């Protein structure tokens, strides 16, 4: 439900990289969205489209790379990929695991039409 706020933050970050004077448009923005970040990619794409619709960024493509949820076991050091968010080590079944990836909300790169 907060995908529109997230889309707005992405746009604010992109603006930091646009040269002030000459007219350069943004071809694409690539973001990383973790599987455990509570963000629905479709809703984020929709929010981005709506917010950029009547601006200079209306043709900018939002490329979403999903990042799987992975955890590292503090007991046996095994790294597990979790398809569902049940936080157990797949090797020793310990619940003493820390999240390695899957919570990302990051702008990775921007491609300019210049």
């Amino acid at each position, binding site marked *: *439900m907060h995908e529109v706020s997230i889309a707005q933050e992405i746009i604010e970050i992109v603006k930091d990289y646009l040269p002030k004077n000459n007219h350069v448009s943004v071809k694409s923005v690539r973001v990383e969205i973790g599987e455990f970040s509570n963000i629905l990619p479709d809703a984020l794409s929709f929010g981005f489209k709506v917010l950029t619709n009547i601006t200079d960024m209306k043709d900018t493509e939002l490329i979403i790379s999903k990042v799987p949820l992975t955890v590292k076991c503090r007991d046996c050091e095994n790294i597990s990929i979790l398809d569902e968010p049940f936080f157990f080590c797949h090797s020793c079944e310990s619940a003493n695991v820390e999240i390695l990836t899957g919570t990302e909300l990051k702008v990775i790169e921007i*491609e300019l039409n210049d």
Partner: protein
Amino acid sequence: MSLITVERKILEKNDEIANINREKFRFKGMFTLNLVSSPGSGKTSLIEQTIKILKGKLNIAVIEGDVQTNLDAQRIDALGVSVVQIVTNGACHLDAMLVRDAFQKLINIDINLLFIENVGNLVCPAAYDLGEEMKVVIISTTEGDDKPLKYPAIFRNSEVLVINKIDLIPYVNCNIDTIIMNALSINSGLKIFEVSCTSMEGINEWCEYLLYKVKSQ
């Protein structure tokens, strides 16, 4: 065509302000909680009952977050406790900027324990650090025992789970042990309280825990 590497967190602005909030709160010697639940699980009721028990022992203040109205702030104000209402006008979560601005109104008051009541929502508040010491997730027995599995992020990101409305267990199809088992499968470190804001069962244990947290801050 030029490719620019960015590598920045989308919520970096929020996180930065949240860290400044946290420093401010700690400097003031406050212990700050961010209460998150579905609409109507009993966040305001839990704050009210906690105030009644701890008012003589601690200086408590409250920041209320709602989409509309200051009704919750009125309930807190009626107990003689300092309260600031944030009205988000549609936004489904509080963010660090809103809390920073609201806290300005409490800056000259002596406070040991600050409650921030988030907007009723189990999804969006999970992503936003407000500068709290910990998140407390509340679910009530009328919501069903599968909620931790359906909304895992907030259970993973909280340190405490309060299961409220245990007085209603005889009337609803809800198994407390299942709630607890499901919650622990998401976050094995959760500290869990079973309470009723109506019968007051379990409220003393919760208040003892808060007293301990404030003293050891």
